């Protein structure tokens, strides 16, 4: 029977195709790009205790909120030099994302916004704080305290900001566009 032969052929072809199933590689995803930790270290000029601000979110988009810590209050009438760093601590060993930001300086900018009675946080003026176009990256900041004050500091890392937009190179986030890769809000007091 010609028909039966054809039918048998069809079914056997089908069986061959079905048997080559894919090998399900179920290795976990290594989230190398993730930022889990923002750390800012403020060092007072002329000695004194450094202040460390840290926000750590080990489960990425997971339900656990970031753990935020501020090592202590800032002292009055002091100028602090701040350096921010970004890390991925979900992988072992932890990865330093700051390096990537420096390598792609034109595509990144860090913004510092404050609320309450705190003085402004400004960009440090040294050359390493600028990208190849002379626009700020903002990894380094300056915080000069006067009297006692309190409020919050919001740090935002923007990927692909429009650094030429009005106010952006002065640290104003309003017209920056782009999208935030990391942000953290710290409660700050000056005693």
């Amino acid at each position, binding site marked *: 029977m010609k*028909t039966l032969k*054809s*039918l048998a052929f*069809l*079914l056997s*072809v*089908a069986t061959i*195709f*079905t048997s080559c*199933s*894919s090998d*399900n*590689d*179920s*290795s*976990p*995803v*290594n*989230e*190398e*790009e993730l*930022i889990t*930790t*923002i750390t800012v270290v403020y060092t007072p000029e002329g000695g004194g205790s450094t202040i460390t601000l840290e*926000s*750590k*979110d*080990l*489960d*990425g*988009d*997971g*339900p*656990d*909120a*970031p753990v935020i810590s501020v090592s202590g209050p800032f002292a009055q009438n002091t100028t602090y030099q701040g350096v921010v760093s970004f890390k991925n601590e*979900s992988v*072992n060993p932890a990865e330093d*994302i700051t390096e*990537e*930001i420096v*390598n*792609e300086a034109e*595509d990144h900018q860090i913004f510092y*916004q*404050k*609320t*309450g009675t705190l003085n402004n946080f400004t960009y440090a003026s040294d050359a390493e704080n600028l990208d190849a176009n002379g626009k700020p990256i903002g990894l380094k900041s300056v915080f000069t305290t006067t009297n006692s004050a309190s409020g919050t500091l*919001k740090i935002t890392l*923007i*990927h*692909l900001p429009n650094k030429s937009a009005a106010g952006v190179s002065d640290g104003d986030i309003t017209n920056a*566009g*782009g*999208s*935030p*890769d*990391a*942000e*953290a809000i710290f409660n700050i007091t000056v005693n």
Partner: protein
Amino acid sequence: MQKKTTLVFFFWMFVVSSYGQHSISGKITTKDKLPISGSHIHIGKKKVTSDSQGNYLVGPLPSGKLSVHISYLGFQPIDTLVVLNYNLVLDFELKESVEQLGEVMVKQGKNTLNKSVLEQKIKTETLEKYSNQSLGDALKEIAGVSSLKTGNAIVKPIINGLYGSRVPIINNNVRLEDQQWGTEHAPNLDINGAGKVTVIKGASGLQYGGDAVGGLVIIEPLVVKKDTLFGKTIFNFDSNGRGGSANTSIHNAKLLGWSYNFLGTFKYMGDRSAPDYNLSNTGNRETNFSAAVKFSQNKYDFETSYSFFKATIGILSASHIGNAYDLYQSINNQIPAEIHPFSYTINSPRQEVQHHIAKLNFNYRWNEISSIAVQYAFQYNRRLEFDIRRGSFANTAALDLDLKTHSILIDYKKNSHDWTIKSGANGAYQTNFANPSTGIRPLIPNYSKYDLGVYGLVAHHFSNQFTLESGLRYDFSKLDATKYYYKSRWNERGYDELFPEFIVSDYGGTQWLTEPEFSFHNISASLGFHSAFEDNLDWFFNISLANRNPNPSELFSDGLHHSTGIIELGDLALKKEQSIKVATTVQKQWTAFSVEINPYLSNIKDYMFLKPIGFENTIRGTFPVWEYQQTQAIISGIDLQTHWKIGNHWQDFFSLSYVNGRDLSNQIPLIDIPPLSINHKIQFSKKQWFDLLLELKNEVVFYQNRFPMNNFTTDIIVNNEFVPVLVDISTPPPGYQLWHFYSEIKFKSLSKIKTTLAFSVQNILNTNYRDYLNRQRFYADEIGRNFQVQLKFNY
């Protein structure tokens, strides 16, 4: 080696002189002189059927020219003219048709797949107008079908308010498996490969599956029913997007012996533009081809085909957002955050998709009454989605899915006298592989899925006026997945108590490796009738029961969706969704006017949908969290279509669709329900002027005032203080009205090639508008005016 003369038909004619009596009689046989009983004979205004010996008699008949039509299922019909001055004896030999089984089914009865549901069809000529667009765009020609869009190039059909997994798409008898659950995943097929598109609103197409809660879209390739060789080439040029497409196809058909066809399509489009600005990164490309070879004999035919679809689709740059504040900015600024000059370049975010279908099928006909079809199909879908990423990841896909599906279908059909019986079984095996090297946790995990289904459909014609139809289907489905869950998510979802058995091992102290397993047994059914009254009045009624299992995105979603800035969470505890739909259609035709009214009501138990449940703080900011929940939903609506022939040259087409979706458990409207829409088209045609055709179309989409309120607030810093601002993601955009123009002429060019030249304008007034069912309505306006020139050659 068939001679051309045997192609159509041949008959003997005897003239018998007689006095006064005018009738025509004769005998209908097969080529082998076997009598055909029950064949349909239509002469002038009289209809009869042949008796058991194949004999017929029609009379009395008036003298003069009369049209004769002879048909019988499974045979090629005969149409001819006779001049009646005496009594005539006409014997006819019918030639068996060797069309594909599916097509025989289609030709049967009122040319439908289903008898109790009035199906909506789009013909080749209409599909050709959309040669440079997508299936979703073309389907909007049908009342009650709208589209869910992401930008301009990603278009998914919505049938009576439902889409995605609820609307399976059957392409050339293969159920398309292309990650169809995703709202931003357009059906992976080339519209140029479609010869005919049929929409079944509801679940009554049981031979294709029992889960079509919304409906079915059935795409059939061009089927040629005679020995012929022809080709077709279409060129499109579009001003908006500054690109176009080319499509060419060749068909070589033989009723007996070898047939083949080939089709290729190439599309190249740059950035589209809205009336006021360029829509950066919205270009797209498509490269498709397909080929089929078929061998036909009287009793059987065998076909093998392969199709390849490849698309690169740019996603509006401005729609990549980081967090709720970004979304707030986009919604409030009303213009995209990124506007660059026109470009053909496609950067991230973008999608790169490939879809392969290889198919073998075999049809066998015992006789003109019963036949069987066996089909094996393999589908391979590869989806890469590129996002805006840092450093070395810029060129690594953020989502890399690899979906393979094997399926086998066996369908048996029997058509005897007043009974039509269809029965069959199918099996499918599917694997999804989510490549972990993306460095981003995949939305859809690795899984294997097994499906098994059996169905039976019976239709009985009680009389020419009344047909009753019923069907029953059983489906078994099993899903085995492998997924890493953060322990924090696992516990937050409550899975530690519900599904401890899914945990396989601990990974790195923070994650669980899990292997969730699900099995489903589903029964679906359909019952309906078609009643044909005198004076061209038809009444269709159908009630259908459908079951849809939760899809992988509903079960496993677990993370941030970048275009919406929302964390979407699946639920492993979801149950299957069950719908009962009642639909009826009343169709009435007068000489110059016809009307079709189709009200429906669908009651869906455990309807799955995304619902906002709160917020999560992450290091990237605060995000609203939406989770898949289930509710009792009711969807009702009405589709109305009219057609008015005003004299010889003018025609008027009108259609209206209204749908109302309600979440009964929460007493709120359902999200993403299409608003009331009205389409009105006036057509002028004149054969003498190169088949001139002019069309003016008016499209009105109303404001959707029934929507759930999902707005939320986020804190922004203004003047050194946190100020809460409202992120309005719920309010639909205002209604809009668009005008479109289409014109064409036909002529012979270059050694008598039939040529069609078409010129059309979409959005003539360059209206600014946004559509409620476009995922990018938060970021940019819809595209503005477009001029299109289309050149079509048939040879």
